[in-house]
């Protein structure tokens, strides 16, 4: 593929594209089949939570894994999506789909306002700014009682519906949420395989180098920040309509940390890793809710172990391990043969 100036653009190799096409098809098959295999309502709920987290994590991975910028405030965008949708539909009787779009756009606008100055900050300063922003939004959720219902939460959010179909149980919501997951992953996948994706990867590699090659780094960083906020907002809206009740504690500092953890555990800069990271950590988190008093310690130990031993992400880490094992086996088989062969 060549652009106007005749320069060759680096595209993903055909093998990767084929692999991606296969993976997406597999994802659809799995999504369709899961409800047939999983009968327990509890597991459906867990799967729905995984889906919602995946949407946030995919967006966040664009920011962290590809543009190399860390945000510890994404709970705020997730929450803004929920609260805009919730307030518009429950308090003002807005139709829900337009409310969701309004929520997404409003969250995007807020992300732009905060991201424009914040992404000029570097390293730990950016971490602190996003962290502070997240905490401020979380406090506002609790204190603006006349709109948000305060710490008791906002009740009576109607479920989503299309035509005559109302998404009012876990199974229907499963299909709805995972359709969104599929769509979001597709958007992210195509974005990465474009001019924008290459620019983002260049920024991650070296901001100075990218800048000198004509990539408007600050503009790209803000754009991808806004995009990841919109992903989070959509997920938040879906969450609000699915659970029909929201309260500030869902959107605290820990959620921000959790989603970044999912990005890291899945592997920074790995799209399928996002799905994997969201799945494994959401599942563990839900499973640990049974043993409530051990939740913090178990989660802490688990996170520490992964980061110590599989810092490149579980999926990539296992891949590496497998490859090295395969390599060893190959060597183990071939070496005696080679030794024998060399005698002649």
């Amino acid at each position, binding site marked *: 593929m060549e652009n106007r100036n005749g320069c060759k653009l680096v595209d993903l190799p055909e093998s990767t594209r084929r692999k991606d096409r296969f993976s997406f098809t597999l994802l659809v098959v799995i999504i369709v089949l899961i409800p047939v295999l999983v009968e327990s309502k509890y597991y459906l709920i867990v799967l729905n939570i995984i889906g919602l987290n995946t949407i946030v994590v995919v967006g966040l991975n664009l920011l962290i894994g590809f543009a190399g910028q860390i945000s510890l405030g994404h709970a705020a965008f997730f929450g803004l999506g929920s609260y805009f949708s919730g307030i518009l539909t429950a308090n003002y009787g807005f139709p829900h789909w337009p409310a969701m779009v309004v929520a997404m756009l409003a969250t995007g606008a807020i992300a732009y306002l905060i991201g424009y100055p914040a992404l000029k900050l570097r390293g*730990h300063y950016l971490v602190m700014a996003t962290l*502070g922003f997240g905490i*401020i939004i979380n406090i506002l959720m609790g204190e603006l009682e006349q709109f948000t219902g305060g710490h008791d939460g906002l009740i009576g959010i109607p479920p989503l519906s299309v035509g005559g179909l109302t998404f009012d149980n876990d199974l229907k919501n499963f299909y709805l949420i995972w359709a969104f997951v599929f769509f979001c992953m597709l958007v992210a996948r195509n974005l990465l395989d474009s001019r924008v994706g290459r620019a983002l990867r260049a920024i991650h590699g070296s901001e100075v180098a990218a800048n000198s090659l004509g990539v408007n780094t600050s503009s790209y960083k803000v754009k991808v920040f806004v995009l990841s906020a919109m992903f989070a907002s959509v997920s938040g809206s879906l969450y609000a309509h699915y659970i029909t009740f929201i309260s500030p504690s869902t959107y605290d500092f820990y959620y921000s940390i959790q989603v970044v953890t999912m990005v890291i555990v899945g592997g920074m800069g790995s799209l399928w890793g996002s799905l994997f990271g969201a799945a494994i950590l959401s599942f563990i988190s839900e499973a640990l809710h049974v043993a409530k008093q051990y939740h*913090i310690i178990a989660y802490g130990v688990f996170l*520490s172990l992964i980061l110590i031993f599989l810092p490149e992400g579980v999926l990539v880490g296992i891949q590496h391990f497998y490859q090295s094992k395969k390599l060893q086996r190959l060597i183990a088989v071939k070496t005696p043969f080679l030794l024998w062969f060399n005698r002649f």
Partner: protein
Amino acid sequence: MDFSQQIAQYIITGLSIGAIYAIVAMGFNIIHNATGIVNFAQCEFISLGGMSMYTLVVLLKIPILISFFISMATVSLIGALMERGPIRYARSKEIIILIFLTIGLSGTLRGTAQQIWGTDNVGVPAFSGEDPIHLPVGATILPQHMWVFGITFLVMLVLRHFFRNTMLGKAMRATAVNRQAAALVGVSVDHMVLLSFALSGALGAVAGMIIAPISTTSYDTGIMLGLKGFAAAILGGYGNFAGAILGGVILGVLESLGAGLLSSQYKDATAFLVLLFVLFLKPTGIMGYGESERV
């Protein structure tokens, strides 16, 4: 109580909480200077300081002065063990991985504290007396506030002496400026990193112990204090010690004024709003020169 007295009262309260933030911020700075990471387990050092003080003084009835030093040593040891174990053996030395590792370790410590002490808030007796002292400006403070000011001041003096006049302190500063150069002239960088964790463990514990009699303590009391300490460090310019003190005091006083004059529910929001505002005007913090990229 007229308006000026009220203001004086808010400022005094703000200064004392600001002193705590400053100590915590210095803990963050020390580790940052040695390693380049943000150590979120600093929050747990604060809680552990407070809770071990409670255990020693209230449960075991050990005199306050002795308890103070035992707690400090214990938490300092925990900090050192953290570095000797997980941080050192982490396979990746990437900054973001190490930061999240400290979050993981922080969860581990907090979870352990929860298993040991439960989730209740507990009180610790004041270091000396509970009778309020009336100041000439019209404000009233508790003796414990005086202890907070005194101990903070002492900590600053000791640290200043340590970093300026002792060989070890100079070696730590050398490591902060340039690791390789420090290693070349014979500074054991490994030991400096270990020492930085031990030192910030001790600082976190001190902060937790002196605030405990004023605001009670629990297994997770350090989270908000720690995050505000981080905010103070960033506000002053990350890694800068004078900045940490300035950042702590500014945050503390503004937060206290905001809570008193505007609304107490927005107390935490005020602190972070001020921080964002300053960062957007001066992206490197008040006294910072910006972050040099570590290779």
